[in-house]
């Protein structure tokens, strides 16, 4: 029988809650920026697209968006695991796989953004 409550926990909840919102705002702003660019240009050909990404400010903005997206995805997916996956071993394996996948996506992002020939 539980007679006393103890205040325990790693206290990462508040930080993650805040990160989830900050990354959301970053992604929303980037989405509006890309939408504005698409509206200004109309249909994009390959040349215009390349010159857009040749701009290092836009490339960096895209990189920041991707970092925000991957971090946001981690918190969201981890929350889903915590809600539905009860066996600790399975949850841990899924979380580890997710982290590795997201880190791989980040590497792929860098490869794409700084690897293409303008």
């Amino acid at each position, binding site marked *: *029988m539980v007679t006393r409550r103890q205040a325990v926990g790693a206290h990462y909840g508040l930080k993650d809650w805040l990160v989830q*919102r900050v990354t959301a705002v970053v992604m*929303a702003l980037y989405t509006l920026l890309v939408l504005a660019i698409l509206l200004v240009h109309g249909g994009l050909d390959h040349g215009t697209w390349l010159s857009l990404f040749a701009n290092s400010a836009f490339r960096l903005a895209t990189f920041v968006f991707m970092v925000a997206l991957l971090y946001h*995805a981690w918190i969201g*997916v981890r929350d*889903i695991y915590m809600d539905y996956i009860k066996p600790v071993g399975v949850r841990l394996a899924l979380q580890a796989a997710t982290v590795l996948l997201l880190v791989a996506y980040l590497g*792929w*992002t860098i490869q794409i953004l700084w690897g*293409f020939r303008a």
Partner: protein
Amino acid sequence: MSALDRPVVKPRPVYLDLVRIRLPLPGIVSILHRISGAVLFLFGIPLLLCALAASLGSAASFAELKSAWSHPLAKLVLLGFAWAYLHHFCAGIRYLLLDLHQGIDLPAARRSSVIVLVVSLALTLLVGVRLW
């Protein structure tokens, strides 16, 4: 045994039967937020990176990407992702406003749920018109 030692038991109805559960509107927006988020994580991110890689590759891969998503079935899939992104976006803005204590009473929360559902569907329709 004093009253403080007794565990608190509140008699509440529990309907975990998925067929019997009737979600209120904010609940529908909430579960769709979760489902759209999961879809975007599972398929959206890898597809986005594939498309970005192809679009920034050679002129040939750019043209290939363009012809690939002009296929009607691909357009339908794209429309699905557009809805997932837009719903997640609109519902997310609603949550940010709720965090700022905007529209937290029940009628306002219900109204904003309807707005999220309608606006995200309307914007998806707009994307569909642009695609076809």
